[in-house]
């Protein structure tokens, strides 16, 4: 079958998505699909069209075993460990912190670390560390994203400092591609290591809005 002929490609893709393409024809189509990005796009377009019908399905409560099975498969019981007992975290320290620690220690090798050199780990609900934040004595923040995350391109993660009852102050956008970024501390912040660090996810297209609640939050640890 000549899948490069657009009308044939289109009608095969449509019947593939609808489910009426079957038997040998379906298997042949699937083999071609694996090798032809144009065909994959045509299938995706038909999925976008035909699966609009999904909203009109009858609503039936699924058996509770389905959710329980998902929890078992996707979220095995967390093994809670103290925050410092984590290889990932120390790897993060090595990445982001190396810079900061160098800045902290280099000028004062023989003196104790400055009391305001601070560190924070931002974790998700499974206690996996997503970002580490190290504050150097010059006040700048070295933020490290410990693993690249599949954030939709129209969204971004922002870091905020929340102190007292006022609205949080934005510190900057967090890297989500596994990289390290340096953020200046806004001059308006009186005590940068007080309070909580908040993370939010917001659309790229709109100006950042101070959040009323965070997606993730953490406190500073003094190094």
């Amino acid at each position, binding site marked *: 079958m000549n899948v490069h002929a657009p009308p044939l490609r*289109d*009608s095969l893709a*449509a*019947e593939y998505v*609808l*489910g*009426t393409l*079957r*038997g040998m024809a*379906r298997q042949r189509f699937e083999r071609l699909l694996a090798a032809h990005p144009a065909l994959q796009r045509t299938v*995706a377009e038909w*999925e*976008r*069209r*035909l*699966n*609009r*019908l*999904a*909203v*009109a*399905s*009858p*609503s*039936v*409560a*699924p*058996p509770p*075993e*389905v*959710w329980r*099975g*998902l929890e078992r*498969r*996707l*979220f095995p019981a967390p093994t809670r460990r103290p925050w410092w007992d984590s290889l990932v975290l120390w790897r993060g320290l090595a990445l982001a912190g190396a810079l900061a620690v160098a800045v902290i220690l280099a000028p004062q090798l023989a003196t104790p670390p400055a009391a305001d050199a601070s560190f924070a780990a931002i974790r*998700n*609900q*499974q206690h*996996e560390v*997503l970002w580490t934040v190290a504050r150097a004595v010059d006040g700048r923040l070295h933020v490290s994203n410990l693993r690249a*995350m*599949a*954030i*939709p*391109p*129209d*969204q971004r*993660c922002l870091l905020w400092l929340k102190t007292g009852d006022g609205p949080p102050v934005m510190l900057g956008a967090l890297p989500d591609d596994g990289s390290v970024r340096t953020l200046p501390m806004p001059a308006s912040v009186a005590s940068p290591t007080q309070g909580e660090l908040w993370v939010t*996810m917001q659309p790229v297209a709109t100006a950042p809005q101070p959040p009323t*609640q965070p*997606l993730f939050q953490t406190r500073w640890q003094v190094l």
Partner: protein
Amino acid sequence: MTSREPLAALLARCALRDRRAFEALYQQTAPTLYGLLLKLTRDRELAADLLQEGFVRVWQRAGDYRPTLGQPLTWLGSIVRHLAIDRLRRGDRRRRGELDDDGWAHLADDGPGPEERLHGEQGDATMARCLETLDPEPRRVVFLAYYEGLTHDAIAARLERPLGTVKAWVRRSLQRLKTCLEEDV
């Protein structure tokens, strides 16, 4: 974190491995997707298996969702329906028809049909309008294929129409839907 957070926002948070967002997404969408799978498979156990498999993929691929792929529920529907059709077409149909209790009768006959649901508050008025441009029999053919997963042969037998007629109805209905939906955007 309200229970009616937009599905796209929940999917975006699932991409961040936010387990609570995943749970909220499940609570909001699983009943519709389970209903879809039950109608397709007529088998509670198989439908539950496919629903679980589908949500494992949703968790793994949440970061792949783009608004250009359609509404979130359309995208979720694509994932579970693809799994179901795959399973049905692999010949795993021996258990088909097992769901002959009250539940199936309710699903099959009572309550509003797809047209009414599409016109409803959570529906898709454009899709409803485009379906109305089809004649009743070709429209029924689309529903039998989409919601019940029937093949050309099975549809021909159900409607007592020649196979060639059914195939032509399917082909023409799909093209008309495409044209109509594209006029809308």
